[in-house]
């Protein structure tokens, strides 16, 4: 039973991964990515890591890929692309070599170290009973690894602040620091350049048509 579930979900993961690479439409690629993430979630359940499985779906499928789709749809790049064009010269041979060697390494490890895929729960870190799983994960994260957790939280906060700063539209001539922007933003009436006038005109047109 374990082996059966493992093989089916592994097939889902792998076909999803291949689909991400081969689909010409970015939206389809994102959907194949969701399929892969789902297969991984099933594998987590198989390992009794039910909390991780739920988080996998909530965070990756529910937030990360949705953001991918947002960007794809809002930037209007949701057209099929020609996969024949190589954007960075030499990228594909290098990727093929690295991928093949990684695959060889993993296959070697698989064949040498174990007796094939069984789907049985891992032996190195038994998580106990399924119901106990969430508790033990929480204990591990917030006692032994609390420093790493807090550091990650700080990193994410910095990333958010950085994104906000980068996304701010700077008015007038480019300012090197946001502090300076705040200082000049309170001053009234800067000489308007042509770009700003065009923008204002465009907006007026939009308002008129709307």
């Amino acid at each position, binding site marked *: 039973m374990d082996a059966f579930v493992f093989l089916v979900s592994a097939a889902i993961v792998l076909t999803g991964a291949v689909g991400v690479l081969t689909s010409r439409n970015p939206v389809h690629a994102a959907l194949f990515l969701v399929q892969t993430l789902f297969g991984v979630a099933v594998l987590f359940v198989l390992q009794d890591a039910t909390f991780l499985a*739920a988080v996998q779906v*909530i965070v990756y499928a529910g937030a990360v890929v949705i953001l991918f789709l947002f960007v794809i749809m809002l930037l209007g790049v949701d057209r099929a692309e020609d996969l024949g064009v190589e954007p960075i010269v030499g990228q594909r041979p290098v990727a093929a070599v690295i991928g093949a060697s990684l695959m060889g390494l993993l296959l070697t490890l698989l064949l040498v170290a174990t007796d094939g895929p069984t789907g049985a729960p891992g032996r190195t870190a038994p998580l106990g009973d*399924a119901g106990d799983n*969430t508790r033990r994960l929480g204990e591990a994260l917030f006692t032994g690894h609390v420093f790493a957790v807090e550091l990650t939280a700080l990193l994410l906060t910095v990333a958010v602040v950085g994104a906000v700063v980068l996304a701010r539209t700077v008015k007038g001539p480019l300012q090197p620091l946001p502090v300076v922007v705040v200082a000049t933003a309170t001053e009234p*009436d*800067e000489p308007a350049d042509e770009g*700003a006038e065009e923008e*204002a005109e465009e907006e007026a047109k939009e308002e008129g048509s709307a």
Partner: protein
Amino acid sequence: MTTVNTVVGPVMGPVMDTAVLALDPLLSGDLDLGIVGIVILKAVVAFTLLLVSVMLMIWFERKLVADMHNRIGPAVAGPFGILQTLADGIKLFFKEDLIPDRADRVVFKLAPYLSLVPAFLVFAIVPIGGDFSSGDGTVTWFGKSTYLQVADPPVGILFFLALSSIAVYGVMLAGWSSGSKYPLLGSVRASAQMISYEAALGLAIAAVFLTSGSLSTHDIVASQVDGSWNVLATGVVPFIVFLVAGTAELNRPPFDLVEAEQELVGGFHTEYSSLRFALFFLAEFMNVITMSAIAVTLFLGGPAGPILTDTLGWVWPVFWFSVKVFAFLFCFVWLRATLPRLRYDQLMDLGWKVLIPVALGWFLLIGAMNVAGDQGWSLVPVVLGGLVVMAGGAALLMGAVAKARAERLAEDSPERDDVPTGGSA
């Protein structure tokens, strides 16, 4: 909180046992054909129940809104027009199935199912019956004792959150794959709204986790026996946040910008017709019912209620559960008949600047109270200190929001030539 802890204390014993087993007693032994049969029976019954209640819910909503508008409402098909939904369903079934020329055909066909399947699956984790006050929430059928819910996964409510994040895909892909402007706008709005309010929803639910001490829906219900319902045990605020965020998550009025007819024609499902449209419609109303059921489970003690007769005693919890769900359904319809639609910026302001901070602050306060209970600290200074910190945080947040608004207004003022394009969107 002290009363809650003392009440929950003795109950936690049996609850913890089931949490460690984390299994329906039905599945704890060896599987035989009867057990498989019961599981299949439960799934089929749950599905049928949900379909029938959707049918009645649509009729009820139309009839009630008609009453509130001083109209008659559906009155032709069946007694009181109760079969109107069935007639509409049959009509939709026989309509022409259109796929727009510019549609992405595969995704277009896939999207309705991505909406429908999560809507149904959520109902599987809701305990709709079982005597929790004197028993352990099991009923005995055909000589086997089992929970009155299709499944009780150890992650329980997280399963609900995971599925509601999947439901976003149905809406988003439906709009995108239609290959047309209005559905795309509607779906971008919808997914932005659902993602924003999911955060507040999750934080409100997290407060319930802290109070009940478990993720499993069965254990959450079991922790609320003796009338210590979570709506009071968590201090009402998470309940209100849950209701508002839940209404927004459902895209129900007053948060139905997704299908604002005046602006977007029909929203994300404009290009859908026939059976596929029916699936979206079904999913929408299923979600209303499951959201009410989840609210009852989390905050109102699930099937808890007095058991009035000994014969057929298992009927009473189901009855109380239905009554509570029905109260929520009535409120949803009432909201629709009463409140005007929010503007988009009001919607986003409410979600990000009010609901999420409030839910987060309250979650931290309950966490502090739990720690105080564990350490044996006096609750009063902890709560007062927590409230002071929360007030400080709220003041900071409001100051920041006010400053940002003042700056935006200064930038938008007519004296400046370099007016930014795009507004508050």
